[in-house]
């Protein structure tokens, strides 16, 4: 029996290590974006990559998101495996044709088997950055027929999912929550991958299911802890990827608890929670003992004020209240 070596890593460094390891492994992996080279990334994710891999493989670009996305697609069709960074996920809207109509459809339109592009983008409310810089775009992305969407919460998942994304043959939008960059977690020293389409039960429980992802996993876990002190055991299902979606994990948990709360930081209307609600209503209707509850952001652009922002997005107490309302 071998013991697994583990190290403590922040989410930021877990992402950094994933890119570095894959660049060492495969010379066709290149990495580029705005301020990712000398500056090491707006959030420091790509520090030291330029030093190790040089300007040939780590490229700083002008502020040109449409060019970043389009060139990544073209490079992926012609022998490279580009990993690109869009500085904020809200800026995906500046190159949305490239993301949605091109990356998301090219394989199907042209029957090209391989389109290995990974687009990394930091997202989420991080203390009053305003509408664009705080936007959570995942609902727009899952509507695409051909994009995979990853939303890791822990350093372990962040590293394993990114390595899977870089090795895969399909375009992936990989959304990193800004507030998670400094959060630490244990990560094995040896190589590992986390498969897409497999949710992770971050806490087991029998009384209610909380389905969530990204930074909201930690608010959900805190809410579950609080509920536990009152004798209510909530199960927290971390989706890890939204496309492909682990329907089975959601349905199994709902079949066990009979109650479902879906939590996300993105706005409620037209959000991921609506999609999950439809799936559960369709496939596990008879197991539900209560209505499905969504806990999501108000349908507003997030304000340029940390205090107001906090009022617009789900907090621990909203999750606690939603679970209790079903019991």
């Amino acid at each position, binding site marked *: 029996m071998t013991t697994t070596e583990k190290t403590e890593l922040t989410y930021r460094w877990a992402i950094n290590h994933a890119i570095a390891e894959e660049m060492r492994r495969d010379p066709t992996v290149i990495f580029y974006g705005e301020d990712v080279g000398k500056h090491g990334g707006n959030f420091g994710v790509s520090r030291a990559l330029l030093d190790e891999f040089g300007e040939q493989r780590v490229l700083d670009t002008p502020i040109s998101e449409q060019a970043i996305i389009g*060139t990544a*697609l073209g490079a992926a069709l012609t022998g490279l495996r580009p990993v690109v960074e869009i500085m904020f996920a809200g800026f995906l809207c500046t190159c949305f044709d490239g993301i949605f109509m091109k990356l998301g459809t090219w394989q199907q339109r042209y029957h090209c088997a391989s389109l290995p592009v990974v687009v990394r983008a930091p997202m989420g409310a991080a203390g009053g950055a305003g509408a664009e810089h705080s936007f959570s775009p995942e609902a727009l992305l899952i509507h695409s027929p051909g994009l995979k969407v990853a939303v890791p919460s822990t350093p372990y998942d962040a590293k394993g999912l990114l390595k899977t994304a870089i090795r895969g043959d399909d375009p992936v939008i990989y959304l990193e929550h800004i507030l998670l960059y400094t959060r630490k977690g244990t990560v094995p020293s040896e190589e590992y991958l986390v498969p897409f389409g497999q949710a992770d039960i971050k806490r087991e429980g029998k009384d209610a299911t909380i389905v969530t992802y990204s930074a909201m996993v930690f608010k959900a876990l805190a809410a579950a802890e609080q509920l536990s002190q009152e004798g209510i055991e909530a199960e927290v299902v971390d989706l890890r990827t939204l496309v492909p979606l682990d329907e089975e994990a959601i349905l199994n948990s709902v079949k066990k608890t009979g109650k479902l709360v879906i939590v996300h930081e993105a706005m409620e209307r037209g959000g991921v929670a609506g999609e999950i609600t439809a799936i559960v209503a369709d496939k596990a209707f008879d197991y539900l003992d209560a209505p499905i509850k969504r806990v999501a952001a108000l349908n507003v652009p997030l304000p340029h004020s940390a205090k107001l922002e906090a009022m617009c997005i789900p907090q621990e107490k909203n999750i606690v209240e939603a679970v209790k309302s079903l019991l």
Partner: protein
Amino acid sequence: MEIPKEKLLELYQKLVTCRKVDDKLYELNTTGVFSGWLHLGAGQEAMPVAVGSILHKDDYLKPGRGEHCAVAKGIPLKSIFASMMMKKLETEKPESAIYAPEYGLLGISGSLGEDIPIYVGAALSSKQLGTDRATVCFFGDGTANRGPVHEAMNLAAVWKLPIVFICENNQYAISMHVSGAFAVADIADRAAGYGMPGIVVDGNDVVACYEVAYNAINIAREGGGPSFIEAKTYRLRGHWEGDPEYYRPKEEIEEWKKKEPLKRYTEELLELGILTAEDVERCDAEITAEIEEAVKYAESLPSPSLEELTETLRL
């Protein structure tokens, strides 16, 4: 520059093929053989033919208006017609009028200009992987005003990529005349702003097109970075088949018909004695037969099933 006689004849043969494919597509579309929306390119053959006669088979080429680039690059006519009819090819590899990786065609965008960065990405691959594959990107005057074109051209210049941008200025973006869309007389003026050479050429003169494209492609291939060529031309048909064309006078179209590239080049070659009237007739008959055969083959192919349409989806 001295262009060898066989190259001059290749240009002629390709011009005729492009025009006849265009005519045939019009016929097939109006008689209901295929039903997709159609943007034909009669009158704009010269530059695509020139470029298709310069590029190597594996160089990357982003097609412009009509199917001229596909024809000139040498994609088999049967594949072109089959793809226009959305038929299922018998080959393992995808090959259509717009996506044929073996011929360097990587697909096009319905929303204008969004594909220019994609081909800049192909040029990035050439540089990164150390191949000598050049890229040529066609787009129109209308597309020249789109944001991604600006971003892509700038990035290509900054990274000194092996690519040539060719703007086919046919003077109308659907109904918008260039005079209402540009405050400069020549779109090629913009090249200076990207730090690349900007060349204006008579886009209906196939030999002139060949010369400027030849130089620009050589510069790109040899590591000299991108160039921007503006080919002034005119589309002889509407923007789409069925376009009432209220926006341009009939006299203007008639004037340009006199300057269209095939007629002009045929007259030149006859005058120079490179072609005889019999050659013209024979070439016409041969290409007509080739097209008929390709169409017959395409019509005989089955349409893909719904399962086949979705088989590349792995999500």
